[in-house]
């Protein structure tokens, strides 16, 4: 019998092989070199996400992340990091949790907040970048 997975194939793909996450040994470097850093946590279940972005000509050229949370949370940040790469800051700011969840082939209702979380971390990182520009 073949193994089954609780969520969509896309969630599984990003959960098992997460893209663009930051390894601990690179954190110090990215803390220094990133143009924007953002963190978000979910009071609902105590999960934490952190996002690092690099910006060039008003475009996000790189997005790295770390997540402590469920499979949907990990998959959401991973998918998001791929989606925002190459986006202008304006576009990235308009990104919605719904779009992330759609990219993942949909999340169960109770897991929607996990995609909100990654999105929040991204928005904080962009804000952080903009503040630095002032």
């Amino acid at each position, binding site marked *: *019998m073949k193994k089954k997975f609780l969520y969509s194939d896309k969630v599984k793909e990003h959960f098992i092989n997460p893209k663009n*996450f930051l390894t601990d040994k690179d954190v110090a470097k990215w803390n220094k070199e990133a143009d924007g850093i953002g963190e978000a946590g979910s009071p609902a*279940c105590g999960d934490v996400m952190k996002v690092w972005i690099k910006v060039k000509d008003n475009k996000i050229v790189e997005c790295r992340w*770390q997540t402590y949370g*469920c499979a949907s949370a990990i998959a959401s940040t991973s998918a998001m990091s791929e989606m925002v790469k190459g986006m202008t800051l304006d576009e990235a700011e308009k990104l919605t949790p719904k779009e992330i969840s759609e990219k993942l082939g949909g999340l169960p209702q109770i897991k929607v907040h996990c995609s909100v979380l990654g999105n929040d971390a991204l928005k904080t990182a962009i804000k952080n970048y903009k503040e630095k520009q002032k």
Partner: protein
Amino acid sequence: MEKRIYLDHAATTYLDEEVLNEMISVLKNIPGNPSSLHSTGLEAKETLDAAREKVAKIINAKSSEILFMSGGTESDNFALKGFMDDKKGKHIITTLIEHPAVYNSCKYLESKGFKITYLLPNKEGIVSAADVEKAITRKTVLVSVMYANNETGAINPIKEISEVCKKNKITFHTDACQAGLLNLDVEELGADMMTLNAGKIYGPKGVGMLYLKQGTKITPLIHGGGQEFGLRNGTENVAGYVGFAKALELIQANREKESARLRKLSNNLLKGLMEIEGVDLNGPVDSNNRLPKTIDVSFKKVEGESLMLLLNEKGIEVSTGSACSSKSLKPSRILMASGCGEEEAHGSVRFSLGKRTTEKDIDYTIKTVKVCVEKLRKISPL
């Protein structure tokens, strides 16, 4: 077939081959309704009576004290709601670590005006008889404390608790669904009501029973044609009850040997897991106070649902008490009551072993858990 190591026997077990064969034979050859008065009916009645007699003998009870029904949940509902039905304004003592079937029955009774005390276990998840005694009021009529806990595996001092109840003339119920490998002699335990189910002892799902000591009165919750002494009505699931009786016979006949085998395996598992950094045991440290099959641990900086799903990909099937995995996004009530913090509950995983678990399975599990925990910690900002 892909490799699968099932370590979730506390959730449910597979059907024993011998049990299945007896059930098939009943399904094929005993088509009657035990209430019918012709040969076909009488055969069914005899088969049913034999199953009841077998169960009664194993737990040292009388046949007339065995009520077959649809499972542990129904049995708990009978013991709580059926018993309290005519006891308006009275008081129940139970615990914060009960199965939802008891806990939510109590919540329901509370909403109907009954007074309930929910006892906290100690830091290892064990309920104390002294605490039960202290909680007794003039209005207390029922104490319900589970025999062994489904998450931590903690074994409660049932004899001591039943003695306290006896001394104070209070009825005592225990949910023994996790305790198939323990001593189930109701006389020795001193239980007035005891819940058992088949689906956790290699018997069929949807089958269970309530032991109801002679003289203990409950109100029927399912009304109908007079089956199960008029208390739990409805045509009997004869094949299911036969399967249950067989399953109980098999597990109890071999319980000491199998307990020792599982104890060794679970202790090895625990030892192996403890080699990983940042691991805490949830439940009794002394393995004699813990079910031989159950090990619940918390991994720091790892979320339990993630770990469970990663392990699933590697063919290892476990469960978790993490908030992320629950329908309410709240951490396990049982772990929280058993001395576990919110964060530890978040990283909790339960491994529950069974008949088919081998030494090799445990070695593979330890190795794989190490890899998966490392992987998740790598992508965690904590």
